């Protein structure tokens, strides 16, 4: 089942920590989102494999925008 990982807040993608095909576990950091002058780690909501990354570093993103899809 695919799980969409969304931005919890508007901000800028500071760093993408995973690549497509990586296996990740729950709570593992996937992306660093810079917002409110702070680095916010976006963590995996479930165990899975990174199927698709929909953003690039320095992209500006909105709340609830899909950043990455896990499978």
């Amino acid at each position, binding site marked *: 089942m695919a799980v969409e990982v969304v*931005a919890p*807040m508007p901000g800028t993608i500071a760093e993408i920590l995973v690549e497509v095909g990586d296996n990740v576990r729950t709570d593992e950091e996937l992306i660093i989102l810079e917002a*409110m002058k702070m680095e916010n*780690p976006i963590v995996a*909501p479930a165990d899975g494999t990174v199927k698709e990354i929909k953003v690039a570093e320095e992209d500006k993103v909105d709340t609830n925008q899909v950043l990455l899809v896990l499978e």
Partner: protein
Amino acid sequence: MAEERKKMTRAERLEAEREANLKHWLEQDELLFKHREESYDIGGQPQVERLAKQKKKPVRQLITQLVDPGEEFFEIGQDCGYDIGKVRLYGGEIYDSEKRGHIPGGGMVTGVGKVHGKDCMIFGNENRYAAGTYFPITLKKHMRAQAIAEASRLPCIYIADSGGINLPLQVGCFADDGHFGSMFYNMCRMSAMGIKQYTLSTGGNTAGGAYIVYLATESIMIEKMSFAFLAGPPMVKSAIGETVSPEDLGGAYVHTQHSGGCDHFVRSQDEGIQKLRDIMEFEPSQSLYTDRRETRPPKFDYKEMMRGTPVDTYKYINIKDTIKCLADDSYFHEYKPTYGPGRGDAIIAGKMWMKGIPVGVVASNASGVIYIDAARKATEWMIRCGNSNLPVLFLQGSPGYMVGKAEEWGGIGKYGSDMVRACSCLKSPKVTYVIGPDHGAANYGMCGRAFRPKFAFTNMRGRTTVMSGETAGFIVETVRRKNIIDKGQTVDEEDMKKFRQMMRDRYDAEGHPFYTGSINFHDGVIAFSEARDKLARAFEIALRVPVESSDWGDLKL
């Protein structure tokens, strides 16, 4: 920087960060221990020798003698008075002009110690500094200790050796609520509530200061060392022309044989301390109003907590790395762990056992910025803790509530106010430990000092100001720019840059634990290595009285 980071794998980078964190916090706690050393050793050897000539010991030594062997003295407010001459409020010029700009310890020692197994609040005038006189900060500290004693119904023991109010600073000491008179007011009220007040006088107690002897449940004076009188020999001489020695005017024999103002005559400090212990032996034993079970050590030690705590106060933290080092067995029962991914987990709620005591937890997490989901969860959890009489530990590292249109429309103000209400109305004992940014309304919702936590502590990473220095610099600059432009003048960019930096520096300085501690905004800076023991001890003291049930008032929902 970004380039450099990419060269390492993520795992390597995190490991390097963890080791850098560890090193940093070890150094910071070392700094804290050195800071404390100043109040332990105030005045140095010359003061110890001066006291020895009067057959006296430093007050800290007397406290060690008083407390049961092997029991730690739980000191409160030790950070008071440091560099107080440089502090802009409750300090500053009034101290500096009298060359009293640095009073490590604030002029007295206060804390909880066990005597014959019973917790009592111990007050000792610092007889190695300015004759134990009371400065405004000394009184603030004294009031705080009396308030803790009253809330937990702890017997009070005063080891009095004070020249009274420090005369050049009288304006900050004498007439207001919370000043010198309040010490006696509190003694009277507490004794009426059945909270015992015991005094050992080991020096001068002049004028109002003498009441600390007379108002006590039982008091002790030492031959040729303790004196209590409304006016000392020089004032008596000038007022009525009578020449009299201190011993004959208000010495121990006078008050134990003639005036009856004091109850026990002893010949030395050692005897006096023994007498206090004898008195405490009769005090009833105390209960612990909780369902305590056996202590289980955490699976991770404090160094793991240091590794998991970013050097930068404003960098995100995984607070579960802290909780696992505080909790018995590292076991944490989390409330709503899956609620509002990415937003709800700005606050982690749950419960754990700390040295066998069940404790609710409300902890800032990640960036600490509180979203609606997190605020709602925190409010729900505080209500649940209150309803089950569970004490609550607040781990505060939040810079504030989330801003912007989406959150305002969604009701962040309303849900934030619910948090503030819940934490105000929560009657179970609250203990706040600031472990990061502590700004704005988040200070309120996360049980800042104004919300009467039973104890408020910080670690070396805590920064308590209305906002971060960065934000304050920006806002004040914007206002200033507008004012200049409105007046039709041009902005001097160089001047503005300096101004911005000045604001940042000011906020950074004023939020530091040593600065906030100097004016008693918290009860102490707790090192990582002490956190578990001291927080558990704080709950133990707070649970000496039955937990009151909470009423929640007009929540918005």
